[in-house]
């Protein structure tokens, strides 16, 4: 972009850093007095026209004295953060900070300000950033881009931590405060500096003691109540399934005895028969057959609809969470920079592990449907059915679904759509499979999912 664009970016960075400094240093009353300086400064520029210059003098003096008295803040404190294991997007999250006063003097009227690290976006990121809220902004805001930059920073930060007030910490004692905030995005939130602030005698400016206290907290995607997806696919043979599903299902089903062959596991030896015959005899078990569904997450955002992608992740997380109640396996598959496949259910990883994976999944701006199809086809023989969570219902995605239908794999397709997108989805090859193609509007997902539950599961074909 042009030099003027870079200059604008540098200005934004300066403004942002200044505003951050002001936010840390000024109390709300201090900000009001600063506002008084600006207003009276404008109107008081001509001392003959008004007396605003006197208000200007008062406000400036108060603020200067407050600044001077905030230069010294003596105290010996230890700050410790107690974070939970996980949080969930848009659900209030509460954690604690323990403040220990190691000095011999009690301290009153302190404020604890914790901070999430956001980092200022690079110039290229700023240029390439898209913000769904841009639609609601006026032309100037969209053109200049500062609100978009703030939105980017806010999203990187992942939450706004409110300051907490401490009335008194006695000498050589500690106090615990609870901070509650709402995580705004999934993934890791990086906690950085914790500040302890002391107001000046006028209560306008804060003196600060900072403690670098870097920690991170994983925020899981939000989940919905999802209907049980009943696909008509049969149970499939799972190679090595006995080892994989050792605790639940058919894994211990005895079939017959046979002579020992080199390589047979020791635990398969039937000791009583061995004692009778004097030669090792092993037990044979039935092969593993159970329901294993594939959950395909579409990560290809072509039109920059991050909100749709977030809803798709939430829906995938919801299915992952619901698998814990069922005697089946679920394979989550998606393509990013590489192809990924994670399994949960039965004795495999806990659903929580899958949620952790989904918490960190990123959208892919270079769609490669061929790679995704190939990845699914590698494991298609083990899968009873596919649940596809798609971000669009365009020709490429329809072709992908047609491919699976041709292989006689039962599919259930969920398409995340914009709330203002009133177009009806054309079923294509899914014609006649009522209820197998479902559109879920962003922002109204739960209602749409509940509607599916009310209507009952789609009939099996």
């Amino acid at each position, binding site marked *: 972009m042009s030099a003027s664009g870079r200059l604008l970016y540098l200005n934004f960075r300066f403004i942002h850093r200044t505003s951050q400094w002001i936010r840390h240093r000024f109390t709300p009353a201090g900000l009001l007095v600063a506002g008084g300086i600006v207003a009276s400064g404008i109107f008081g520029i001509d001392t003959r026209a008004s007396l605003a210059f006197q*208000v200007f003098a008062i406000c400036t003096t108060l603020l200067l004295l407050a600044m001077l008295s905030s230069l010294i803040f003596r105290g010996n404190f230890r700050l410790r953060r107690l974070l939970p294991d996980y949080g969930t997007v848009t659900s209030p999250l509460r954690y604690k900070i323990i403040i220990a006063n190691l000095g011999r003097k009690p301290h009153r009227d302190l404020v604890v300000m914790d901070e999430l690290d956001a980092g200022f976006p690079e110039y290229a990121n700023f240029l390439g950033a898209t913000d769904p809220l841009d639609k*609601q902004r006026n032309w100037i805001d969209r053109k200049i881009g500062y609100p978009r930059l703030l939105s980017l920073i806010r999203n990187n930060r992942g939450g706004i931590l409110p300051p907490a007030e401490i009335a008194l910490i006695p000498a050589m004692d500690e106090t615990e405060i609870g901070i509650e905030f709402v995580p705004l995005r999934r993934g890791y939130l990086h906690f950085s500096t914790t500040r302890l602030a002391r107001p000046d005698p006028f209560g306008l400016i804060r003196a600060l003691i900072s403690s670098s206290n870097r920690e991170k907290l994983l925020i899981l995607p939000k989940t919905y109540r999802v209907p049980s997806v009943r696909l008509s696919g049969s149970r499939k043979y799972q190679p090595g399934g006995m080892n994989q599903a050792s605790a639940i299902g058919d894994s211990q089903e005895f079939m017959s005895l046979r002579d020992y062959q080199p390589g047979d596991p020791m635990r398969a030896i039937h000791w009583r028969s061995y004692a009778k015959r004097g030669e090792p005899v092993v037990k044979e078990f039935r092969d593993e057959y159970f329901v294993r569904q594939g959950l395909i997450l579409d990560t290809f955002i072509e039109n920059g609809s991050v909100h749709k992608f977030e809803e798709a992740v939430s829906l995938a997380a919801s299915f992952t969470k619901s698998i814990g109640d069922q005697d089946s396996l679920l394979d989550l598959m998606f393509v990013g920079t590489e192809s990924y496949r994670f399994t949960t259910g039965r004795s495999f990883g806990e659903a929580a592990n899958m949620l952790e994976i989904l918490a960190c999944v990123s959208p892919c701006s270079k769609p490669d449907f061929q790679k995704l199809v190939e990845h699914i086809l590698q494991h298609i023989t083990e899968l009873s059915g596919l649940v596809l969570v798609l971000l669009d219902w365009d020709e490429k995605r329809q072709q992908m679904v047609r491919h699976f239908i041709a292989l006689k794999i039962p599919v259930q397709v969920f398409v995340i759509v914009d709330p203002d997108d009133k177009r009806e989805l054309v079923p294509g090859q899914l014609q006649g499979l009522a209820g197998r193609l479902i559109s879920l509007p962003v922002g109204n997902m739960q209602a749409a999912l509940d509607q599916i539950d009310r209507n009952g599961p789609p009939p099996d074909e």
Partner: protein
Amino acid sequence: MGPRLMNSQPASLTAAPRFSLGAALLLWGWQTGFLIFAIPMIFLIEMSSWVTWRWPISNREFNNVSDLSGVGFFITIVYIFMTAGTKGIFVILSVMPFVLLPLLLLQRYSERGRLPVNSLFISLRRLDPVTSPEAAAEVDLSLPYLLVCIVSASAGNQRTVWFFILTFALFAIVLWSFRPQRYRVSVWAGLLCLAFILSYAGQEGIREIQRSLEASLISLFDQFMWRHRDPERANTAIGSIGRLKLSDSIVLRIDTTDNFTGPLLLREASYQKYGYGMWSNTDSQYTVIDPSISGNRWTLAEGGQDKALTISGIINGALQSSIYCHPVCTAVSIICNRACFYWPACRLPD
């Protein structure tokens, strides 16, 4: 001693101390001459502390009142700028407590007791309060209103030391209300006394700085901004050092066919009304006179050539003149008293 758990509280503005808003409105009314309006306003505001009933006001109603105040403010701005020109900014400043009063009353008589920030900013109304917490924030308008009253009061004409003293006293009352308990009263009071002395000296210093600046820039103003008088309005120059005539150049020449018998003093402009540092005329009627074909002559009135009066002046380096004929004395009188000689468009009162 074991740890005690405290809850985080979002730092926000506290409410203004009781009666401080009334005091600020009294100051404003006294300064701007709106005392008769200030008293019922004080009554309405302070009554909210005594009356216990409150309205359940929805977000939508907050938005509507906020929008109404915005529209009222816009209309006020347009009207005042049209009637008073750029100097009308001080008139706008002086009426700000009227504009914000509906919002403050709504806040004080609502069950919520605070104003949703998104009612003040339309852009915030569109945001989801869950993902954008700033859209769900609430603010107490009383302290900002108090500050608005003080700044608005500064637009008034009572230029005595009492304005400074009363304003500082109001600040002291407000600062006392949220004084951190960790400091002794003596420390706080001492610092406040220091602030009083410094701010008084500061405002005197600001006044002196302006005087010095004006003295040094007076010649520049004389050259560029005071070249022509506006017959409609002019800024006050009370207290400023006048200009000394340092040039011998002739700015205006009057030629008559007969001996000139009219007054010899030429007045640049006369005004009828003073307000907010501005002189203005309210009922002036002017007629635009087109120049002659040559472009540098204006005939002020038709008449015989035997007793003609020609007024010539240098405008933008070229000699321009206008001719006025009988009766000479009347013509000069008009020129002197009604500020009609306004270059380059010469206008006469109807």
